[in-house]
């Protein structure tokens, strides 16, 4: 398939922003400036970028605990994301959510989720809303190989298949559920095979190849939008860093990590577009600089932004009636 220079650059824009965002977190973490939990997406950027390139602004996604990449790919504002990580009033969740709960309903990002497997049913409910109202919006649920062993997977996929909901389930198979290798937790090698149990299409693609992800997801998203029902897309990828901050990674050799890092989705995309003269070195460098600047600005602004006021603790717990005090 022939792609325009503009389109290829747009994919790189997303991937490089995700990469720079996560690398900045790593640096901040080293200097002891961060708190709470966050899970880095480095190495998996091609999945979010490739899938979301098929989505419209009014389509919906649900994300995971490892959600920064999905947010950026769906069009969230990195400034508000960074401010949330700093627990600022100006953050997406006004400092009440943090990394695992970033959401941007205005771009159809229905939330990261601190519960593994918590997104399946929320995405199915969003797809059900399209089904009820006759809307053409597609919903996409990102989840990991570890989450595929949750019971909610079965309830959501069965219901989605039964009602032919406009929905694509995207498994990011990064080979580890926290510290447990997929082979030690899962009795099949391809999670996409589970699609058979629901009578829906299942596909496995190279999740480090953004164009392969884009094309497969495009086929399944279009199909869902036409009313032909849900599908399961498995993207094979690799998590370059630990599960979470402070993960000593005793469960895998550094040698394995170094070997697998060679198949970096950004590096291989860069090489491919340059070798085929599809995008110039200058254009890529520009994108890299722009992304880096944007993240640096986001950090500077977040540092200066105010922390939440004490009164904001209760402000958004309920939707209050006019004059109603805190609900007790």
């Amino acid at each position, binding site marked *: 398939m022939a792609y325009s220079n503009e389109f290829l650059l747009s994919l790189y824009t997303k991937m490089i922003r995700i990469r720079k965002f996560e690398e900045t977190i790593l640096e901040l973490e080293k200097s002891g400036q961060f708190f709470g939990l966050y899970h880095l997406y480095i190495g998996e950027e091609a999945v979010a970028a490739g899938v979301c390139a098929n989505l419209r602004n009014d389509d*919906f996604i*649900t994300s995971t605990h490892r959600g920064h990449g999905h947010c950026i790919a769906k069009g969230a504002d990195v400034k508000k994301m960074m401010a949330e990580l700093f627990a600022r009033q100006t*953050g*997406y*969740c*006004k*400092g*009440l*959510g943090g990394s695992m*709960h970033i*959401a*941007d*309903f205005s771009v159809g990002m*229905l*939330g990261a*989720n*601190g*519960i593994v497997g*918590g997104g*399946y*049913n*929320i*995405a*199915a*409910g*969003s*797809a*059900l*809303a*399209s*089904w*009820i*109202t006759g809307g053409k919006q597609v*919903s996409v649920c990102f989840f990991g190989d570890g989450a595929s062993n949750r*019971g*909610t997977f079965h*309830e*959501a996929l*069965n*219901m989605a298949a*039964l009602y032919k909901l406009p929905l694509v389930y995207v498994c990011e198979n990064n080979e580890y559920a926290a510290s447990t290798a997929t082979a030690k937790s899962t009795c099949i090698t391809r999670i996409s095979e589970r699609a058979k149990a629901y009578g829906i299409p299942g596909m496995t693609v190279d999740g480090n190849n953004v164009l392969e992800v884009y094309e497969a997801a495009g086929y399944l998203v279009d199909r869902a939008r036409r009313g032909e029902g849900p599908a399961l897309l498995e993207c094979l990828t690799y998590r370059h860093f630990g599960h979470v901050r402070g993960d000593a990674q005793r469960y895998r050799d550094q040698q394995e990590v170094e070997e697998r890092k060679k198949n970096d989705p950004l590096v291989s995309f860069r090489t491919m577009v340059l070798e085929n003269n599809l995008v110039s070195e200058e254009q890529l460098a520009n994108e890299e600089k722009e992304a880096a600047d944007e993240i640096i600005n986001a950090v500077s602004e977040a540092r200066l932004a105010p922390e939440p006021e004490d009164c904001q603790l209760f*402000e*958004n*717990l*309920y*939707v209050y009636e006019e004059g109603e005090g805190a*609900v*007790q």
Partner: protein
Amino acid sequence: MKELTYRQAVIEALSEEMERDPRVFCLGEDLADGGISGRYEGLASRFGPKRIIDTPISETFIAGGAVGAAARGLRPVCELRIADFMLVAMDEIVNQIAKLRFMSGGQCRLPIVIRSVYGIWGSMAAQHSQSLEALFFQIPGLKVIDPSNPADAKGMLKAAIRDDNPVLMLERKALSEKKGPVPDGDFVVPIGRASIPMEGEDVTIVSYSFGISLALEAAGRLAHRKISAEIIDLRSLTPLDYGAVRQSVKKTGRLVVASEGVRKGGVGAEIAADIAEQAFRHLKAPIVRLGAPFVPVPFSPKLEKLICLSADDIEKAALKTMGPDLI
């Protein structure tokens, strides 16, 4: 004003609200067939399969799906059948429904109603008989209502459907076929205000749901002994109308709290603690707190009866607050 059963009153509320607002739909098991015990009777044929949506036996989908649909602007009414089954969807109810608005800094409204019947009813044993209201009234982000009569069931369900917050409506099995007057027209009962089904001077009896039927019976017997009981029907457990209870205790100086749930850490414990903190000086006698013993519900009708709250228990508790020689 007409006489309806609790179940009929609820169906009337659902049907009026679905008529009023096209965003309202029901989601749950066996709904097309009228729901268990006819809880959705006649609605499927009237509103069709896109408003009365039948699901497989998938509680996590029913509750979790409601989140996605509500985030998209719809107003789901989730049928979770029997309260014990709600536990299957605890993640969806407690981690997702109750928290998404808060965690996202107020980005969304989740106008979700969860309906569930509960309580002891004819030897259904340990997994079909629980009174779990205390679990849920501990969860910030949820509202919890537990109406005691057909009028409140209708009016509070209508309020719950119109509420932009998640509301858990608990419905006591024993009340389902109970009849009562239900006002005509658009009758809405605000959530969060207790009612006073009987005014009195000597002792305050606080309860809710089926406990109110028992309290009324006990109050009748107390009246024969010239003891005037005031009954407070909490109706809503979150928000909890602390003010109504405090005000009544300030008048009577005596308090009995009667709940069918496990006594330890229950709704009664919360009310008793609040009165001890806020109205201690007004108390003329120690508070009496009634609730179930710390044990699952047994199958044996004989043992089941042993742990049921009764009008006798409430009567004796009230007498105890009046003076030991009365019992």
